[in-house]
């Protein structure tokens, strides 16, 4: 693989990690959704580049799904949902921006150390892609932990899935079954979550998960 191919793949995967950091400190739902759309866009570009470099045309399908579904349809629909729920004002974080960013940096460092040490046998592109992918996955998890708001958690989960797609496309020649299933599972997951959000809205007039906690099974 030529030097420039490698660098571009690197750039795209790295930008995905950076956008994950951007997501971490967004305190407005609108802004969060916009950043998520950017995240999905970077994923689509990265997957398309992998398809080109690996000469694997089926990966273009995955890239198209990422572009159309994750970068456009989901953010638009979620925008409409939060308007209808009337929660497009601020969202609160459990921990502040500073600690969250520090924890994020720690997680990225962790995934670099783990992945680069473990995979020294693999080819350089795959191994660094995998390290970036693990960072994105861990940052998604961190975001799910730091958000109280149900929509925020869902966005965290979706960026986690983006990290998985990055990992799957980075693994050269991985059978299509997995890529389609990932895209498909996001679709299903999204429908499920959509239903849930509406039900939760009906019952509690909020999508704040902390309010849900009041109804824990075993009080009294």
């Amino acid at each position, binding site marked *: 693989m030529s030097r420039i191919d490698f660098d571009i793949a690197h750039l795209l995967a790295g930008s995905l990690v950076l956008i994950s950091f951007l997501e971490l400190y967004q305190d407005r739902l609108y802004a969060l959704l916009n950043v998520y759309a950017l995240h999905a866009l970077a994923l689509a570009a990265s997957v398309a580049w992998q398809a080109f470099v690996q000469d694997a045309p089926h990966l273009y399908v995955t890239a198209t799904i990422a572009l159309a579904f994750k970068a456009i349809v989901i953010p638009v629909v979620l925008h409409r949902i939060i308007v209808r729920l009337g929660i497009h004002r601020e969202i609160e974080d459990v921990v502040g921006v500073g600690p969250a960013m520090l924890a994020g940096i720690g997680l990225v460092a962790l995934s670099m150390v*783990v992945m680069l*040490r*473990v*995979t020294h*046998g*693999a080819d350089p592109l*795959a191994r660094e892609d*995998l390290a970036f*992918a*693990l960072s994105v*996955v861990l940052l998604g*998890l961190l975001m*799910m932990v730091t958000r109280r708001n*149900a929509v925020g*958690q869902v966005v965290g*989960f979706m960026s*986690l*899935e983006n990290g*998985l797609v990055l*990992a*799957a496309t980075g*693994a*050269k*020649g*991985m*059978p299509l*079954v*997995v890529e389609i*299933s*990932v895209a498909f*599972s996001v679709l*299903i*997951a999204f429908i*499920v*979550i959509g239903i*849930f959000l509406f*039900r*939760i809205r009906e*019952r*509690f007039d909020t999508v704040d*998960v902390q309010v*849900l*906690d009041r*109804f*824990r*099974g*075993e009080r009294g």
Partner: protein
Amino acid sequence: MTFNALTGVLVVPAAAAALLAALPNYRATARLNVAATTLTLICALSLFLGRPQPSSYLLVDDLNGTFIVLTTFVGFTTSVFSLSYIGHELEIGRLTPPFVRFYHAMYQVLMFAMNLALVANNIGLIWVAIELATLTTVLMVGIYRTPEALEAAWKYFILGSVGIALALFGTILIYMAARPVVGEGLDAMVWTVLITRAGDFDPALLDLAFVFLLLGYGTKVGLAPLHAWLPDAHAEGPTPISAVLSGLLLNVALYALLRFKMLLAVNTAALAPGPLLVTLGLISLVFAAFMLYRRRDIKRLFAYSSIEHMGIIAFAFGMGGPLANFAGLLHMTLHSLTKSAIFFAVGHVAQVKGTRRIGDMGGLTETNPVLGWSLVLGVVAIAGLPPLGIFMSEFLVVSSTFARAPLLAIILVFGLLVGLAGLFLRLNSIAFGEPRGTNAKAQASYVPMFAHLALVLAAGIYLPPPLVAWFQNVARLLG
């Protein structure tokens, strides 16, 4: 492709799901549900007569043959139980006909997903199937639409998805490890290919992959400290689903873990997966045993008991070796049968008493002798007292551990005794003493419950030699 038993196990539930979603008449569909599970069970049993060659996607061997028969059998009896249970829920208006239609369709989708996970020969396909099973159960847990049910479903969904995501990352890492050895493409995800070549894989990658898989599928097994979703999901969903979750879905996730454990066992340079399973198993056992004492909700009580038993099973498979594996398999089978029987009883108890709070029910053996004594028998079985089957499997786990790691055996016995006392403490207030709570007439179908308990009792008294030989063979496979 010609029709064979393997396709039957998959096609019957899938077709039934489509049919049940389309038909409006809920009385007929409830019977159709039973018919479909019966047919699936017949297909599963006929796998013993002749099994197809493994393909790149599907595989039947001795290991998953055991799981398939167990799954389809409990699926069948649960559908019989659900016939009367759902009828009652309709009568008191907790469920409306559209929800019942949805429920039956989802029941078949769940059966399909679990069977697919069991017969999959492709590590990607296993993942897809378990993801599908998770999503269906999320929908079923939330079906009552009460605040508690929604919270349980939401929690289960979030924790389950994170677990599933970690498992996918582990699956990708396995592929990365296999690619340099097996080559690119489909073969590097086919389990039967992987197992023959796993000796040459990069051990560091395999180790890392297994850690992710253990965390991911371990969440679905309900091993502490990854169990947080389990009690809520069991308590808030319809009782037939609690029975299927406890009796089957936890097993299916464990089965996936066992397949990957076998891969690691082939590679001598990779870390030994046993100690990890042993540690998680013991933590689950002791933790859940103590948690039994403070339960106020009858379904949560038995949900924690499931965590306890999954801990014992994970422990047994973690110890490995022919005897411990044999004990683990036997324990898993008997636990599935007993726990689903208990949930059948609990479902009717909750309907009779109109509540799930243990404090509001009492004297069950006096007011409803058949139901009460069946519950007592079930709890005696699950607590591991002779002459019922679980006593024997627990005895085998303990004795095989004493021979190899006495210290671990002491912790194990301690956990078992704490759990036993906790269960009986709660059982005492439910089954005996002054009758409390309402006392509606039970229109129960006792047959599934009796069938399960009879099997457990029979296993405790006499295990037929062919079954023993079969389990020993599978135990050898597991290494």
